[in-house]
């Protein structure tokens, strides 16, 4: 079930009505327990709407990490504790590796053997990718690691833990939540403030705007430009890459905002996942503003355990590269994702010596840095979206060798790109100036209403109601 479907609207209306009714009908503690059961049943139904067979995986992941958490809470011997954490991580990575990367590794191994003349006819399984597996395995792993590090106490309540893992707003495409942020909110009775309602409704409307108006309208342009047999000049490749940059942003940030908004309506706060990432000046800032929950996860559970920036300059570079390579691979089992991770790793390494110079930039310098960073990010999206290395090479070649501005496709690419990104950028400008992604619900009444009404009109009149899936579901 996707957020932009009628199925979800019905589902949410029923769950939300019951959720709000429980505190009216029962005493506080009873209502709280009832709400958690409701969220658990609702979340499992939400997941089963895709494929009920994968519920077993979700339940297994929940039970294994719940049990590991309990055992870690009891054990004092550090060696044994490390074993239990290793067991949990091993289980999660094995599950992720089998379902997400089995075919990738098998195919590549086959190709490698073939390249050295060995024809290995081993069996390859056509394994289906369970939706959201990359997200919930990271959620449960972070819980066990946090318990191991004694940053949180393990929860004894299985229902609370199962809600933490399966909570439907974040289940299939994040944000990747930490137990420290979400579990306490599940464990205690929740109230819903007027501000939460207002912000929640705005986030939902804005999320739908980003998905239906921006992402789904730019998708046909990006598909056309990135089609395997397209032959376009550099200027059109560039504009198509811009279109994809805003498509993937609108798609993913839109999902995150709808998730945050629906969760706010239930009195549960989810972490911010995007903070106008295309307005930043440096590669480091990009990763602090793009998919924040993943980049902080990678920082805390991979980069820092590898040594972070504590060692020599070379060790720091190595750690950055490993983190970004694995971050790229997390997005999908394809070499283009690995290359995309490598590219961002290199950007981070190359940026580090100039870190202080960026801080001293004047207004013009900042504009130049933004322009360069935006295009570096877009080139990353070209790598990310290219259907093959051959196509990536052709598109890059076209970009630099056949730019020809006179061949720009004005009606097919340029005008739609401007139409679908200008309102988004206008709101971003407001948010960036206030350094607050929730500035709109806090604006003066007249301006706020103007933005609300314009957002709804734009969705209604120009939104693409085709109901396509969110891109990040495949990760």
């Amino acid at each position, binding site marked *: 079930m996707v957020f932009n479907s*009628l199925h979800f609207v019905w589902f949410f209306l029923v769950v939300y009505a019951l959720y709000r009714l429980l505190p009216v009908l029962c005493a506080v503690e009873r209502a709280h327990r009832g709400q958690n059961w409701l969220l658990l049943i609702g979340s499992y139904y939400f997941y089963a709407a895709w494929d009920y067979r994968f519920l077993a995986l979700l339940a297994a992941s929940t039970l294994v990490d719940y049990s590991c958490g309990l055992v870690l809470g009891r054990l004092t011997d550090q060696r044994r504790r490390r074993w239990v954490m290793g067991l949990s991580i091993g289980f999660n990575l094995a599950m992720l590796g089998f379902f997400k990367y089995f075919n990738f590794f098998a195919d590549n191994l086959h190709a490698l053997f073939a390249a050295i003349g060995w024809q290995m006819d081993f069996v390859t399984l056509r394994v289906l990718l369970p939706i959201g597996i990359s997200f919930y395995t990271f959620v449960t792993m972070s819980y066990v690691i946090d318990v191991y590090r004694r940053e949180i106490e393990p929860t004894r309540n299985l229902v609370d833990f199962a809600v933490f893992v399966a909570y439907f707003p974040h289940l299939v495409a994040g944000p990747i939540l930490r137990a420290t942020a979400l579990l306490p909110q599940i464990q205690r009775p929740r109230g819903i403030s007027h501000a939460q309602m207002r912000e929640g409704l705005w986030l939902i409307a804005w999320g739908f705007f980003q998905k239906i108006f921006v992402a789904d309208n730019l998708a*046909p*342009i990006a*598909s*056309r430009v990135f089609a395997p*047999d397209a032959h376009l000049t550099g200027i059109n490749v560039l504009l198509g890459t811009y279109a994809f940059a805003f498509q993937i942003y609108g798609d993913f940030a839109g999902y995150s905002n709808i998730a945050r908004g629906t969760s706010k309506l239930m009195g549960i706060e989810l972490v911010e996942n995007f903070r106008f990432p295309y307005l930043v000046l440096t590669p480091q800032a990009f990763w602090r503003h793009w998919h924040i929950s993943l980049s902080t996860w990678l920082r805390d559970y991979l980069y820092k355990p590898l040594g972070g920036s504590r060692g020599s300059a070379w060790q720091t570079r190595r750690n950055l590269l490993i983190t970004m390579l694995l971050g790229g691979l997390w997005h999908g089992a394809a070499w283009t994702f690995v290359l995309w991770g490598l590219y961002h790793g290199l950007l981070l390494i190359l940026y580090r010596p100039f870190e202080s110079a960026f801080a001293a930039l004047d207004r013009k310098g900042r504009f130049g840095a933004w322009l360069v960073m935006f295009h570096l990010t877009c080139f990353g999206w070209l790598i990310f979206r290219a259907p093959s290395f051959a196509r990536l090479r052709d598109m890059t070649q076209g970009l630099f060798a056949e730019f020809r501005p006179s061949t720009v496709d004005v*009606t*097919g690419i340029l*005008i*739609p790109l401007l139409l679908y990104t200008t309102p988004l950028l206008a709101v971003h400008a407001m948010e960036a100036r206030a350094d607050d992604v929730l500035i709109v619900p806090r604006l003066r*009444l*007249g301006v706020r*209403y*103007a933005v609300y*009404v*314009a957002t709804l*009109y734009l969705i*209604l*009149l120009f*939104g693409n*109601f085709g109901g396509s899936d969110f891109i990040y579901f495949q990760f």
Partner: protein
Amino acid sequence: MRRTLLLLAMAAAQFAAFETALRLWGHSEASPAFQTLFTPDPVLGYRLRPNSRTRFVTAEFDTEIAINAQGVRDDADIGPKPANERRIVIIGDSLVLSVQVNQQQTFCTLLERSLNRGPLELARARGGVYYRVINAGVQGYGPVEELLFFRQVARAFQPDLVIHAIFVGNDAEEAVTSEPRLHRTDPGAAGPPVQEVWQSAPNDLRRLARRSMVLQVARLRLLGVTDRLPSFGARPEPPLQSYAAHPAPRIDAGLRISRDCVQALAADAAATGARTMVMLMPARFQVDDADYGRLKDVVKGAGGELVRDAATARFDEALRPLALPQFDALPSLRAALPGPDVFFQQTVHLTPRGHEIVARALEAFLRGQGL
């Protein structure tokens, strides 16, 4: 109260702004600029407005559309037929009209050029027998309107050959809906003309809604949503009934009406000395695998079963007893893949490449038929 008034004022002001913007720049089929191509007609409901012209721009195409004095898509008028001119009139719906491409790119014009081995003007100048292919397609027509349009307009073009293009995707359904028109071809018996009905409509609000582009778009959106709402009680009918493994009874009725219309058109054409042939046009998903996969799931989700070429087979079977030459555009379009798209992505109409393929295949078919 103050907040509600402010919200309403904001909504009204932005409504006016969007309405203005859509009227000025909204190049959609609902835009007034595009709607000027049509005029009410007491028998047909509507037809192309003679001597009209517009530019149609969307994200996928930018075309100039000119309607001649006779009310068909052509830059030039259609006068009396010279002795050495052979006329082919192609009757059909939007797949023939083809507002998504320029006139020179339509399969009608491409066919004309191939048959003449060059542009019409050159063929005329060369002397001898030459062909003129007339695009007599009208957006939204079905077999019933096409028969009536032939009688009312296209018969006067003195055709030597009439090609009746059937869109297998929806013509059976449209034939059922339009069947009552067959029984009121006499303008006197047709009830009040469309314009009068329009003017006598008692509901001012409805009239206002029909004239507002914002409200028209909103209405279409709402219909799109309510169509997808589960209806309580009766199970909703799966879409694409013409392709259903077990179609609704109206599809059989539609096929019968379509056959009767084609037969009547062929008889009328024969009375003027013209031959008739049938051309079957497929839906996009019959050619596009990804589209087929998506629609198959949609139909399956609604409890039905989509059979990819069922509608083509049904029309083929229904029309074969008429013993008219029958050309199916599907095999040639399919054979063109993989390659650039033959259908646009945001409409179900042919791209310039799709038109080229159809024109080539149709020419081969006509030559095979001893044109």
